[in-house]
């Protein structure tokens, strides 16, 4: 492939990449276009690939009929707080796992790896009972606590990969200059780590923002639902209102799209290092 590209080779490559781009983007385009048709125009023939008139009716209906603003706020609070707390906690554990040798280290890494292999929803039932005992069902704090636990293992592995790329000498020098280990971590390492930490936070945020099964199990009142739980409510009803559904889908995807655009390079790096190293 490094050889000079022949004309047929070039044509094949460009065609394939272009086709796949269309395949990737089309569903997103389609749901956006649907959300911008007026409710009556969604169900007409022939299907319009470019609507004659655009309308924001579906979006307006979402906020007036359904409490979408409430769900949006809930999701925002839960994902931000859980993402930030998990990142902070993982920073400490990742630092220790990257910089120290100790006996239980491989056991701890293995425990983190197992949580990645065995999905959390296996524990849905017991988690519900446990949260009932703790009086944390249908409570944003409860969901945040669970999400922090879910986020920590991968976030730790990801940040550990970033820490391992920074030479030890950096904080050693700082400690010789009189900073404590904690001081060296905060004043010297973290500024260097900034892109990695932001990527880890975004990764956690997106995961919590998208999570469905735990939130469906733990949140049931309309005031506490997160967006995925609300969407699940929309499809449980017999007839799906595809107008509001597609508007809701667009509003759900948009924030992750913006965040992903900012951090995709670092997230990809973290993903690959985390996944291959295990």
């Amino acid at each position, binding site marked *: 492939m490094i050889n000079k590209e022949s004309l047929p080779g070039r044509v094949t490559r460009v065609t394939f990449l272009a086709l796949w781009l269309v395949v990737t983007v089309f569903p997103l385009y389609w749901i956006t276009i649907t959300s911008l048709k007026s409710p009556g125009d969604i169900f007409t023939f022939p299907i319009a690939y470019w609507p004659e008139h655009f309308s924001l009716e579906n979006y307006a209906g979402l906020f007036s009929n359904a409490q979408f603003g409430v769900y949006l706020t809930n999701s925002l609070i839960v994902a931000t707080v859980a993402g930030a707390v998990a990142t902070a906690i993982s920073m400490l554990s990742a630092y220790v796992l990257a910089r120290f040798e100790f006996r239980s280290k491989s056991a701890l890494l293995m425990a983190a790896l197992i949580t990645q292999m065995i999905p959390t929803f296996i524990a849905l039932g017991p988690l519900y009972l446990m949260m009932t005992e703790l009086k944390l069902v249908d409570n944003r704090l409860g969901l945040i606590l669970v999400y*922090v636990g879910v986020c920590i293992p991968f976030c730790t592995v990801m940040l550990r990969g970033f820490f391992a790329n920074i030479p030890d000498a950096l904080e050693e020098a700082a400690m010789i200059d009189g900073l404590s280990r904690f001081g060296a971590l905060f004043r010297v390492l973290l500024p260097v780590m900034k892109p990695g930490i932001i990527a880890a936070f975004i990764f956690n945020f997106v995961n919590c923002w998208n999570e469905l099964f735990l939130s469906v199990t733990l949140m049931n009142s309309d005031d506490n639902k997160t967006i995925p739980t609300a969407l699940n409510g929309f499809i449980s009803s017999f007839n799906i209102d595809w107008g509001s559904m597609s508007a809701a889908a667009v509003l759900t995807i948009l924030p992750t799209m913006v965040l992903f655009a900012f951090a995709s390079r670092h997230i990809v790096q973290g993903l690959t290092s985390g996944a291959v190293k295990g």
Partner: protein
Amino acid sequence: MTRSTYEQVERPSLKGGARPAPTTASQRPRRPAFTARRGLVIAAYMAPAVLFVAVFIYYPMLRGSQMAFRHWNLTDLTDTSWVGFENFQAIFTDPAWSTVLSNTALWVFASIVPQFVIGFAIALWLRRRFRFRGLYQALVFFPWAISGFLIGILFRWMFNSEFGVVNDLLEKAGLIDEPIAWLADPKTAMIAVIVANIWYGVTFFSIMILAALQSIPNDLYEAAELDGAGKVRTLFQVTIPYIRMTLALTVLLRVIWIFNFPDIIFGMTGGGPNNETHIVTTWMITITQQGDYGKASALGLIVVAVLLVFSVFYLMATREKKGASS
């Protein structure tokens, strides 16, 4: 001349994946003066993480595993006695069980093969630098950030029997004469959910394989070219052997992941029509939601057992890789 063509290949931009892992061996063990104090630092920094994961992940999982041997149904909480293997028996005698099993196998296999092939092709073709490559990658990799559940909803709408765009496009292309009720027939519904899963999963393969490809030293290609090896031969005798381990690991990791990935099916068919598109994990979640925690936990244990088998393979392969690269 050779030199300049080689320089068309960009420096690795996706570092990480293929770079040798910072294994414990490569890190100097420390010998600080106060070992007790060092232990304290380790414990203090690790404590919050360990506490959260132990309480919110491991404890419920362990509790769930003993629930599998008890009668535990939300509709009747007065009786939570031990019932031995009754829950397991209930699963194996359930009429849905055989469908669930074959669906799971189909779901994993039919998803992973196209994901791998398309992902590999994209990775190979993305190595050459072209204008807007960064933008292209960002767009093509983006599905990764959407929730599987939402992707299910997206494709549910596209596969809609009356107003779905899939039927419309197929009719325009002259491939079908009248609309297909994709999600109403279990056979076509399985095809539809697998198509959605392929769409979603190609990204992961291309990311991982692209990262691995960028670790291949250029001299190997130079040597191959000097030997007069053509493209196909270079692919099979240089590229694939060099990243063989990463390919194997990626496939294994994906098998584990796809096996326990209920989100798309949940959003697209909810396991319907008539329980016919359930895979093991969607079925488990449905049973949980019906309140039969005993039966759901038993099914959960079965899932865990299967996953452990795959995980052991994965760990063995990782170890082999570390051994080979050091």
